[in-house]
């Protein structure tokens, strides 16, 4: 896959196009999220937040970003 090629990922159940090569860390930053308040699952596997700077997204990747909300 060429680096310039546009890729599509599924982010929290919704399709999203990425224009350039994006790491998971870049994605979190672009969403204005703080890494210490979320957990990330890539293709159903939980990822260690320490590794996300060098973890690049691929076409058709499914990523879930979750956090805490109010609950009983």
């Amino acid at each position: 896959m060429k680096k310039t090629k546009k890729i599509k990922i599924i982010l929290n159940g919704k399709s999203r196009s990425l224009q350039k090569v994006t790491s998971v860390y870049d994605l979190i930053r672009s969403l204005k999220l703080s890494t210490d308040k979320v957990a990330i699952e890539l293709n159903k596997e939980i990822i260690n937040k320490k590794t996300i700077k060098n973890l690049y997204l691929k076409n058709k990747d499914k990523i879930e970003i979750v956090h805490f909300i109010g609950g009983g």
Partner: protein
Amino acid sequence: MKDLFKIANKKFKSRLIVGTGKYKSFSECAKAIKYSGAEIVTVAVRRVNIVDKKKPLLMDYIDPKKITYLPNTAGCFTSEDALRTLRLAREIGGWKLVKLEVLGDKKNLFPDMIETLRSTEILTKEGFEVMVYCSDDPLMAKRLEDSGAVAIMPLAAPIGSGLGIQNYTNIKIIRNQTKLPVIIDAGIGQASDAAIAMELGCDGVLINTAIAKAKKPFEMAEAMKFAVIAGRKSFISGRISKTLNGSPSTTNKGII
């Protein structure tokens, strides 16, 4: 006299755990927690809102360094979903103490005890400290204890029903048979329900709806705080035995 609430070697002063759902806002929730005196709050795990980036975050209102977050698997109907949720919760910030809830009945929100038991075993093996929402069945409570649960959390009545404790006998049997803390989870409606739970010998009470949906949530939060304290003190003080006939409070000696 120090009477601390111990769960998995952690010590707390307050025996009231509150949920953070159903409030009008995070600020209302944070204020209610303050009134309740709770040191532990349950929280849920959900997808972040990727559209509205300015949406307020729970962690900005309730500081996890000051209040113990208890990640909960509310809304999970399978063991798989519950495990996924708690593994994610642990990843957010290293939470090991968690509350497991695997539901089996959409109408009454009763727990699916087979799935719950299975999940407790797996989570315990993975190093979690699992507090478990369960039915008020003493046999199941025993099985959970054998599977490594750190707290038994029987329901008083269906979640959010406000019906109060329905089965005094089973709750007492569960309390008396286990070394683990027993925490009444679900079904509390008013302060007296919480006091009764404590007088039955329970170690704590978890309340969400009864506070969040009261007309005056802050007042109710405070009422629950006092009810739990009163019920606990009443339990450990050793109540008088019940008698059929009256006994005067004042001596007859020196009567005129």
